[in-house]
């Protein structure tokens, strides 16, 4: 099977940030993203929505370089004031040229 090795960045964040984060992802070079509604607990429990504990989980498949840019941006723009968590894993993607 012909696959390309890329990075998948997963961000879990407060729902109010969905729009801000996803438009930033595209700006930084992502070609798409997948968002899932989820709930969770972390160190802060800050919630600026009616539904306590609710968060959005954003997955984005990108090149290693874009992944780094995303993490850098998230760290600087969101970590100080928002409940965001970010992790990266390595994935093999079919039709991977679409995402770089």
């Amino acid at each position, binding site marked *: 099977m012909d696959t390309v090795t890329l990075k998948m960045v997963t961000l879990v964040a*407060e729902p*109010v940030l969905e729009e*801000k984060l996803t438009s930033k992802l595209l700006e930084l070079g992502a070609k798409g993203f997948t968002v899932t509604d989820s709930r969770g607990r972390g160190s802060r429990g*800050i*919630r*600026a929505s*009616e539904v306590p504990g609710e968060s959005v989980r954003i997955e984005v498949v990108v090149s290693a370089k874009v992944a780094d840019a995303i993490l850098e941006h998230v760290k600087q723009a969101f970590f*100080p*004031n*928002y409940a965001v968590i970010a992790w990266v894993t390595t994935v093999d993607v079919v039709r991977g040229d679409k995402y770089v």
Partner: protein
Amino acid sequence: MEILKANLLSPIALAFALGIVTKLIKSEFSLPKEIYTGLSIFLLFSLGLKGGVELGHATFDSVAWPVVVTLALGCVTPLTTYFVLRVVGKFSVSDAAGIAAHYGSVSAVTYIAAMTFVKSQNAEPEGFMPTLLTLLESPGIHIALAIGAIKTAQPGQSLKAVLHEVLTARTMILLVGGLLVGLAMGEKNWGSIEGFFDTKGPVFKGALTLFLLEMGIVAGSRFGDLKKVGPFLLGFGVVMPVLHGALGTWLGTLAGLSVGGATVLGTMAASASYIAAPPAVRVTLPEANPTYYLTSSLAITFPFNILFGIPLYFQISQALHGGG
């Protein structure tokens, strides 16, 4: 006392109290989010439609002064809130501005409860009250966020985005849109759907009862944070609405509103937004502590107004109108 008792024994106050108790006994029960949203859509659209149908009967003269005082309230209440919090409460710029955005705006549910209450007291408010509600919704948020953005020297580039979001949000679409639809359709067409949307009818009141059950649950789930906000904010959450409520009732009376209308305007001024304001503040002023603004508006001011404030403003209004 009679009036207070009438309010506390109304289905909506009791349902609200039941919601609070539900959380106090640590029940997991709550309405599904979609049902809650569906109920709020129905309630807001009903209000808009009814307001539109009645606006058709209003004259320009009767509306002009109420509009002016409403806009004045929209400018004054965020400022009073901000300065009280800064000067007396020693809050940071961000926190004071964040809370001011909430108290400068208006809680649609509190408004609905006030409308239902005065109608049950046979003090029918003016038909254009939904118009005033929409006018009061956004200025407070913008004034407060602008103060915060200027004082913390932030670019504030997102203020325009926030404005668009508030103006196109659920509450606005349903109230303003419903108003226009009601205005266009007129009495005759209204007759065919009145049995469903009538804001004095059982469907509206039943939906409102269920909605306030959920609002009680939401407010009750914030009660755990009451000890985190300190005694100042606890007192603030009760005193500020009384001051704004009296001011609003007085200005409304001056502007020519009836007993019921002035009560509702006072309630609007007294109420603090907890639907439109929180996301706007969270995105624009992230340093403001959400526990402060959510707890004061949702766990203190909101229950206070629903249970005690509305009958109080009603009595103030009666007194100002030479009755009571």
